[in-house]
């Protein structure tokens, strides 16, 4: 149950990664940094402009999404058609830059973001105490994940996006404004990361390092789920969160590596990941 909360973060983050990867063929190494920025934007919004949590939940993804759009326009765009590894390296560099800038500006110990009043307190479920805020996190992330999944797998926009991944030029030659679509998709993926960041802000300390600590696990989640599989990343994210939660209770020493162990096992049995399509 407790693992679900972490699972919820894994799910949204890996979803964002999967959207960006599945549709643009970019492994967005900056995802952790964007998540961190989402949390920071929320904090700055509260601290400097008095914007409350609920508003921040909208504002931060927008701001970070806009930054994503900017990144896409100015940099990623030049890499299309090249080996996708370049995208990975570029975003890796960006992640370093963002993290460095925030460290420089805000220090490493970070800031704390208060739990919004409406969700403070906890419910006693009898066998355990569940802070209300955590319940909300799980709920909110489920809704977002399902919404995204529907959008991509079940709509025409999704078809454009998937086709665009394979041969963007051709889709464009059919009359779809691919550059704009790609830009917005990347922005949306980044916004998802920021959304997770805002959700996380009241639970964890908002620090410049919060993203890089999480991102590698999220990568593993995406690999296990089958890269680019939207549904796969959501289910795997939640599932792994729970597995990890259990490991923490029963064999905490292993909880750090359990995800990677699972990954290794999954890859041996199903090289394409649990939900991935065989190449």
């Amino acid at each position, binding site marked *: 149950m*407790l*693992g679900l*909360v*972490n699972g919820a*973060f894994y799910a949204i983050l890996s979803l964002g990664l999967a959207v960006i990867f599945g549709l643009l063929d970019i492994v967005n190494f900056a995802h952790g940094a964007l998540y961190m920025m989402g949390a920071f934007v929320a904090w700055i919004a509260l601290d400097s402009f008095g914007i409350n949590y609920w508003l921040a939940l909208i504002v931060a993804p927008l701001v970070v999404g806009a930054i994503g759009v900017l990144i896409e326009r100015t940099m990623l765009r030049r890499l299309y058609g090249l080996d996708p590894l370049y995208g990975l390296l570029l975003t890796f560099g960006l992640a370093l830059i963002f993290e*460095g800038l925030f*460290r*420089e500006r805000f*220090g*490493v*110990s*970070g*800031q*704390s973001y*208060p*739990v919004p009043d409406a969700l403070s307190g*906890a419910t006693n479920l009898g066998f*355990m*105490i569940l*802070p209300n*805020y*955590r319940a909300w996190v799980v709920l909110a992330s489920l809704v977002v994940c399902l919404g995204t999944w529907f959008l991509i797998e079940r709509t025409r926009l999704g078809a454009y996006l998937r086709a665009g991944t394979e041969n963007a030029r051709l889709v464009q030659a059919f009359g779809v404004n691919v550059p704009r679509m790609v830009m917005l998709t990347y922005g949306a993926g980044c916004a998802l990361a920021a959304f997770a960041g805002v959700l*996380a802000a009241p*639970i*964890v*300390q908002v*620090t410049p*390092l*919060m993203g890089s*600590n*999480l991102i590698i696990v999220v990568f593993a989640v995406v690999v296990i789920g089958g890269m680019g599989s939207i549904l796969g990343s959501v289910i795997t994210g939640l599932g792994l969160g729970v597995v990890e*939660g259990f490991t*923490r*209770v029963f064999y*905490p*020493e292993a*909880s*750090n590596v359990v995800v990677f162990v699972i990954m290794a096992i999954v890859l041996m049995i199903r090289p394409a990941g649990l939900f991935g399509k065989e190449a």
Partner: protein
Amino acid sequence: QQAPANQPVRIGFITDMSSLYADIDGPAGGEMVKWAVQDFGGKVLNRPIEVLTADHQNKADVASSKAREWIDNNGLSMLVSGTNSGTALAMAKVASEKKRPFFVIGAGSARLTNEDCTPYTVHYAYDTVALAKVAGTALVKAGNKRWFFLTADYAFGHSLEGDAANVVKANGGTVVGTVRHPLNASDFSSFLLQAQGSKADILALANAGGDFTNAMRAAREFGINKSMKVAGLLVFINEVHSLGLNNTEGLQLADSWYWDQDEASRKFAQRFFTQYKRMPSSLQAADYSAVTTYLKAVQAAGTTDADKVMAQIKKAPVNDFYTKGSVRADGRMIHDMSLFQVKGQKESTKPWDYYKLVTKVPGAQAFTSLAESKCALVKK
């Protein structure tokens, strides 16, 4: 190393300026070294003093090559090490090989004055053994007998936990449970539920940095700080500040210095505050103090010759705003340590008014005794 009379005396300061530990020491620590030099008059033995600073980025190889380069190429006289034990141990090796006084401030590993002690190392501010001992002794004495440890699952956490547990047991307390969490575990809820079930008096956090802050937040979220006292075994004021009092109220912690502990400290702190808009950490105060101590020793010895200066340092007691103490043969500086409790929001009357003193533990009790030391220098 007969430096010509007009050659500047060069002091080097290497710490983490950009990463994990940049707040508690970092660039501001370097500035403290410069202040110490300035306040000393910028000159010693009629030679100007120069300060070199570098960022080791938490890489031992960068730290040790920088130290080596400074000593060989820049004629460095003395080296101050900031945070991160791995880098400090690597530099200690270089400093002793090249015979340069080496002051460790930010790094906490007790190995610096035990297995890996050198004739030139001075471990100045604190070590993890002392922190554990201070918190353990004082809290058990105050009646908190049942301890539950939340420990970072690697060597550092284990030794913090082990040292504290020993003290707790020695003072008649019991350890009712331990749970080990991985490094950078962002979610502490499952661990804390276990702690909650233990009905302990003290939840001891044997971890540091981001793990500490996140554990602390979760402890509050699950209401643990209401049912038991939380003790942080390695906590700096910057972390308390960033967590805020509502998250940390009642937290027990050991430290070597607090800005509001006396008039002299407040004066120093105020000066720091004007520049940095925050209060100095104990490490930053110690950086200042250590350099002053060194310069005084050079003055008294009339030379920068390492052996003579080291002899002088080990002879003369330290007495300044930071602390009163003396450097032992194994390089350990012995001075009083304090146990603090974090104030509640209401008690806090001014900015950065965070701690109240619970008790002071004399240096002789706080640190490992010479008899227990594993340092080869003091073994007969």
